[in-house]
């Protein structure tokens, strides 16, 4: 019914939409999500031909290209066939007319009904949207925001349009009203095509079966809402999900590094993307479809950074790690949870190539790791339980952090120094000369672990394996270190394998949790699923024994 192809909208030199392709059939619903400034509203306005920008491409509605219609023809379609509910309710309603009149007006104006019929119909609509008759004669300023929104929705539906464009329909409402109106919109709008424009994932998932993620004027990911929210494949979608406070995920909120900038050559998201490669800044990735999902990414969506297949490590007769399969995506945290002796550390060490012999395969970005050398260690780094032990007592803070660069022979002495100092700043340590020349035995546990983290990060690795990084720290210091790791993940797009016995901490920092018992992974899934609906009795046991404040002991 609606087919948008290669839509480009610009205001002066500012290209707001850049080659958008969309399709919407009757009765379908599609949500367009994205941060503010991505061009969502412009898209809606372009369909209504209400944008002031220069529009190119084509918007076909029932086989007619809306962009080539005369103003008169467009008039006939606007509000009758295609209606839009605008964002920002305050400015849209006419303050001098009662709400009943305002809802009736489009019907009268388009001569669909006579005045009385129109008013009756308007009343029905308002009632449908939960406004009682007493309120019909009220003026906009007498209504609450939620009520105004109901009026607008009623207005949009007055001429029974085939396509309903809803621009942030629920954003300004409180959660309870949002729930009510959301349900209402689903039933009322069920047989109409709906285009929901929103930055709010809750609204999108309430109102639309399909989801298109817009970034920098381009659709970066499109597909069924449920699938996208469960397993985003574009780095931006994933970042957006992480930044969104909700009751489903359990990980701490994380922002997206940087700010949206325009214009950008190549992929619009590449300056903020954590897995960008050279080509990303050169050419615009096309939207490619596979398994019902469209993703515009040169790397085919989120990359699987590291995976292990059938990894086993035995010490004599003891199988410490037993046929483990795991994967870690770019920019995500996988928590490996299990009691001590379950083989977590052995697994990490095996991945790190500490043992010359093991069974199974480790893949780094799809390529089999055949030898552990500088190339591997430049990309995969590890921090250890005991930071005091992992730092040489003879090296100062600066020397310790410079060591990896020295080993890898990166840059000149001066550049190494600079890089090391910058990284030390990044882990929130002092960059003063005094501190840089301090020796480990003068540092606190938290400082030591930060130095160890800086040392691991100075090579700009893609994956950080953190083996109980807070085990030797006080709770408050440990919390800061975990926060630091989360921030570093946000800024650097670091992937992490976080090893812990503490499932309470794991759920706060990880996207996924893998539970390990006797060398095997017995359960693996999104953190929220593992925490709320564990399948294995061992996981339940682990959850039951996890840290808690035990308030129920004192009743």
């Amino acid at each position, binding site marked *: 019914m609606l087919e948008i192809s290669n839509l480009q909208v610009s205001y002066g030199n500012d290209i707001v939409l850049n080659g958008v392709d969309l399709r919407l059939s009757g009765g379908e619903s599609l949500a367009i999500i994205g941060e503010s400034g991505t061009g969502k509203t412009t898209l809606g306005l372009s369909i209504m031909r209400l944008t002031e920008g220069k529009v190119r491409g084509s918007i076909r509605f029932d086989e007619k290209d809306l962009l080539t219609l005369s103003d008169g023809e467009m008039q006939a379609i606007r509000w009758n066939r295609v209606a839009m509910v605008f964002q920002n309710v305050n400015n849209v309603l006419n303050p001098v007319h009662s709400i009943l009149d305002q809802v009736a007006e489009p019907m009268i104006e388009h001569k669909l009904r006579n005045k009385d019929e129109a008013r009756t119909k308007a009343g029905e609509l308002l009632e449908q949207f939960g406004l009682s008759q007493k309120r019909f004669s009220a003026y906009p300023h007498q209504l609450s925001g939620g009520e105004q929104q109901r009026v607008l929705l009623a207005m949009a539906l007055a001429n029974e349009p085939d396509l309903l464009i809803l621009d942030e329909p629920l954003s300004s409402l409180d959660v309870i009203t949002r729930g009510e109106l959301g349900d209402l919109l689903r039933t009322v709008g069920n047989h109409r095509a709906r285009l929901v424009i929103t930055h709010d994932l809750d609204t999108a998932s309430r109102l639309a079966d399909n989801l298109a993620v817009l970034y920098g004027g381009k659709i970066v990911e499109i597909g069924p809402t449920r699938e996208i929210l469960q397993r985003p494949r574009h780095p931006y979608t994933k970042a957006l999900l992480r930044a969104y406070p909700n009751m489903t995920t359990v990980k701490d909120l994380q922002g997206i590094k940087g700010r949206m900038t325009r214009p950008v050559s190549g992929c619009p998201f590449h300056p903020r993307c954590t897995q960008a490669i050279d080509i990303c800044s050169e050419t615009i990735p096309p939207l490619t479809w596979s398994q019902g999902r469209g993703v515009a990414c040169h790397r085919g969506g989120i990359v699987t950074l590291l995976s292990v297949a059938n990894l086993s490590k035995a010490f004599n007769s003891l199988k410490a790690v037993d046929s483990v399969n795991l994967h870690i995506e770019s920019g995500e945290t996988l928590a490996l949870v299990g009691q001590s002796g379950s083989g977590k550390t052995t697994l990490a060490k095996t991945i*790190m190539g*500490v043992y010359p012999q093991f069974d199974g395969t480790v893949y780094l970005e799809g390529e089999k790791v055949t030898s552990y050398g*500088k*190339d*591997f*260690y430049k990309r995969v780094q590890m921090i250890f339980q005991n930071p005091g032990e992992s*730092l040489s*007592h003879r090296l100062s803070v600066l020397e310790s952090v410079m*060591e990896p660069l020295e080993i890898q022979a990166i840059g000149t002495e001066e550049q190494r120094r600079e890089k090391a100092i910058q990284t030390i700043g990044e882990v929130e340590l002092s960059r003063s000369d005094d501190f840089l020349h301090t020796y480990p*035995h003068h540092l606190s546990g938290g400082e030591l672990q930060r130095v160890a983290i800086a040392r691991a990060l100075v090579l700009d690795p893609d994956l950080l394996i953190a083996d109980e990084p807070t085990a030797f720290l006080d709770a408050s210091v440990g919390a800061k270190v975990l926060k630091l790791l989360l921030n570093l993940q946000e800024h650097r797009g670091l992937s992490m394998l976080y090893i812990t016995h503490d499932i309470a901490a794991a759920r706060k920092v990880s996207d996924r949790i893998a539970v390990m018992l006797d060398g095997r992974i017995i359960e693996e899934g999104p953190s929220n699923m593992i925490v709320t609906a564990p399948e294995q009795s061992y996981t339940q046991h682990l959850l039951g024994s996890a840290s808690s404040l035990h308030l129920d002991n004192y009743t």
Partner: protein
Amino acid sequence: MHISLKKEIERSNAGRVGLSLLLLVIAAAVLAPLLSSYDPGQQSVGSLLSPSGSHWLGTNHVGQDIWSQLLYGARTSLMVGFGVGIISLLLGILFGVSAALIGGLYDKIVMRVVDAFIVIPMVVVVILVAAYIKPDLPVLILLLAALSWQGGARVIRAQTLSLKESGHINASRMFGAGRFYVAWRHVLPDIVTILLVEFIYGVRRAVFMEAGLAFLGIGDPMLVSWGMMMRDAMSFSYLDVWQWWLVPAGVALSLTIIGLTFVSHAAEAALDPRLRGAEVA
């Protein structure tokens, strides 16, 4: 954590005495030409002269000045001692560290070779070999070094093995560091005190061996050495000359060895605080 070896040695009485003795012997060796007016090989007017103003300790059976011989003998002792000490330490580091870091078959082979050498009675082998090849000074040093690095290598290997599992070396490996880097940057600095103790031990043994060989008459007869002086003096034991010929050489040798022993004791005590005894309290 940081052991300042110099400070620790200077703090103990034995260390101070040992260092003083050692410095005394070194000074004698270095300043030999200034402290005596005769060449130790030069044959002067009369043989077996008693001490006098011109020959402080008299002359020996071929008319050489004993005082000069005593001073130049220190040179020989120290050259052999330090030469052997350094070479055997380097060999010990080479084989000990590499065996520990490389491991596997290489480690096994090196350690079996070390074992084989250790069970051979060194003194007997040295005497036999030296008697056969009549070594001059450099060859003697090499010979002694070749037979004395094994014990050090074993200790160094053990220390390196325990360090190898320590966190910072593990971490270093995980930045991609090679074995050489690890050995140079982390292992050696961490075992430097042990190396010093091993070194002094090696010096002491070499000084003793050299004197012993010379005393037995094996080795270069042209070399002025305390051992040879004692040997020569022994043949004239029925005369009074032993007082200024045999005794000074024996005392010089003893003082050198005592000095080295004291220093190594002090250094060992510095390494292991438990050996420091009452000083801790």
